[in-house]
């Protein structure tokens, strides 16, 4: 068993272990309903953090519009689920919803990737930001309904759909989709998280993954060795978008009201995901998962402090960033606790720094 395989197994192990512990707590009735409610959001934020880490850490391209792909996955799958709610049984419907959500997000990742991936660095970041906002605003202006005559769609208003009396408006402009079946649960979330981890970790350790990282580390050298730079960039970006789409499917099937508004899919939300990735360690997949879980849970666990919690959350964020990443503190930590001390171990195992990126 080589080092990489072992490292990957530890990641799966942590996720499965966390799953088992929470399940046991739930079965024995020791988990508060507050925490129970946090479990599913935690999994989908971990999934999208993994997706973004593939783009930012492995491909090395800063994307700050990733919530746009999550939005696409959420809306396309919610649309399907709502439209076929009374036609298909739950299990196949939810599976197809996943396929649709992932497919649509991947398709748009591909299409957007064509112009966007010709850019580098800051320019790419700005353009992805713009695309994230465009996706959100376009979805906001759609009105789609279904009646006995089939699908009606326009971008003006729900009345202009001219539907029959039996019509059902599914996507209602800014009001989005309400009443998506509540199908997502913790088990499904964990399965999706494990699958995304499996895909990303295996991609990294494959020939393709090495090519992608070569592009990140030295673009010119990679091109000179005959790597199809555009092709690999597209591949990584599309996979990343697809996984973000899967997170969107979980999102829309967990919260029954879905609106394409900025607090869920705007650039602020995208930057929050980026914070998960940066704090967990750019290029460190396991770190993203753990950081996403901790940072999502933190403001919730601080609820007791009322409105002060936002302030405290920000301070904790700054402190965590410094403790984890300041070179001086890392040196101090190693001196004080030793590399094998508890603190050093947590630091190295959880927030294992990726030397290549540094």
């Amino acid at each position, binding site marked *: 068993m080589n080092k990489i395989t072992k490292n990957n197994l530890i990641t799966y192990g942590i996720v499965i272990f966390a799953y088992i512990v929470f399940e046991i707590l739930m079965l024995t009735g020791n988990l508060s309903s507050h925490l*129970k409610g946090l479990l599913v*959001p935690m999994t989908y934020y971990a999934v999208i953090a993994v997706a973004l880490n593939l783009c930012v850490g492995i491909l090395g391209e800063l994307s700050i519009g990733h919530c746009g792909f999550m939005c696409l996955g959420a809306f396309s799958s919610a649309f399907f689920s709502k439209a076929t709610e009374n036609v298909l049984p739950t299990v196949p419907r939810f599976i197809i919803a996943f396929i649709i959500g992932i497919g649509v997000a991947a398709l748009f990742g591909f299409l957007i990737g064509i112009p966007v991936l010709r850019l580098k660095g800051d320019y790419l970041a700005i353009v992805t930001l713009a695309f994230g906002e465009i996706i959100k605003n376009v979805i906001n202006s759609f009105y789609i309904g279904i009646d006995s005559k089939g699908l009606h769609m326009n971008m003006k*208003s729900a009345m202009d759909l001219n539907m029959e009396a039996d019509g059902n408006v599914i996507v209602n402009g800014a009001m989005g989709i309400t009443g998506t079946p509540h199908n997502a649960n913790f088990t499904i979330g964990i399965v999706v998280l494990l699958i995304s981890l499996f895909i990303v970790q295996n991609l990294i350790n494959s020939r393709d993954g090495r090519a992608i990282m070569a592009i990140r580390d030295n673009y010119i050298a990679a091109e000179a060795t005959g790597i199809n730079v555009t092709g690999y960039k597209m591949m990584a970006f599309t996979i990343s978008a697809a996984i973000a789409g899967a997170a969107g499917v979980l999102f829309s099937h967990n919260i029954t009201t879905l609106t394409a508004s900025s607090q869920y899919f705007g650039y602020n939300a995208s930057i929050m995901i980026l914070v998960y990735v940066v704090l967990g360690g750019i290029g460190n997949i396991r770190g993203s998962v753990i950081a996403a879980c901790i940072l999502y849970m933190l403001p919730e666990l601080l609820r007791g402090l009322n409105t002060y919690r936002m302030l405290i959350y920000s301070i904790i964020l700054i402190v965590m960033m410094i403790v984890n990443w300041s070179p001086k503190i890392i040196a101090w930590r190693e001196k004080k606790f030793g590399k094998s001390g508890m603190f050093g171990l947590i630091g190295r195992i959880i927030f294992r720094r990726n030397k290549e990126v540094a």
Partner: protein
Amino acid sequence: MKKFNKVVSAVMTSALALTMLAGCGSGAASGSDTFKIGAIGPLTGAAAAYGNAVVNGAQIAVDEINEAGGINGVKIEYKGEDDELNAEKSVNAYNTLKDWGMQILVGSTTSACSIAVSENTKADNMFQLTPSGSAEDCVKYDNVFRVCFSDPNQGIASAQYISDHNLATKVGIIYDSSDVYSSGIYQKFAQESEGKNYEIVSAEAYTQDNNTDFSVQLQKAKDAGADLVFLPIYYSDAALILTQANTMGYAPTFFGVDGMDGILTVENFDTSLAEGLMLLTPFAADATDDLTVNFVKKYNEKYGETPNQFAADAYDAVYIIKAAIEKSGVTPDMSVSDIGSKLSEAMTQIEASGLTSSKMTWEASGEPNKEPKAVVIKGGVYVSAE
């Protein structure tokens, strides 16, 4: 062996972290000598004004009831939680309150959050009374009722009012297509307007991303000859529209809905421009009846500001719950689900009066029956339009 150590310590750390988390929970309350009422709303962020109004308004009602000896001699315990205007966080807030032992929910403040939470209250059969969740879907479950008008009702009431009082022959509309509230009212208003004694000559949308320049929308309404402009929007945007209409010399009647309440408090807004503005609102802070005067005074003393309709809705909500509890005779030692069923049943039988209407009754669907109040701004204050 070193590798093994690493694995073990990874497992140990995660176990440690998890036990810490698990310790936070499991506070199933058994408070059987008080009613526990919870409220949810955005207490931080851009919409904090609404959430704080709801939480504070309900607090005043709770204090009053407790001072007067409680409901059937039973005191109320009350707690408000923040949802940051985020449906996901609203569900988290609901779960937090549930852990605290909440039996009855006043919330959520906003529509999308309220819909998301109603999915959970339905599963628990908890009685939910939203003071201000106005979207149609907020009350689609049997255990959910509301205090305010629904968006469609406001649209219908506005269309009725304009037609009954012959206010216009040609109507222009400016609405916010990115906002659920605004587009909801607009849709119903447009539907209801068919066959009325006026016609809609222009309907122009804007979004929250371009809510600074309304000259195009105003120009279209002006060119179409609209003598009344319907503004189903919030007051901050409306203040800009009134200012810009004045600059271009366009002076139709402006007609708003309850989101217009607050326009006289906009900073740097020349309130003389709002002269003649009509709005449908359930609550006017300068009304002279004893109930309103008393409420406004208490709110001002406690929180240092004048309450808006959200606060009034929440204040009424607590008294409505009181009436429903008295009618159904539920006691705090009953289970949440039993209380929920009994209160839902009692809601259709009670008749409440409060700040937002002197007579309110409820359908089993959860919709309130009450008369809309129209006011017109004259001399910088609300005056009844009747």
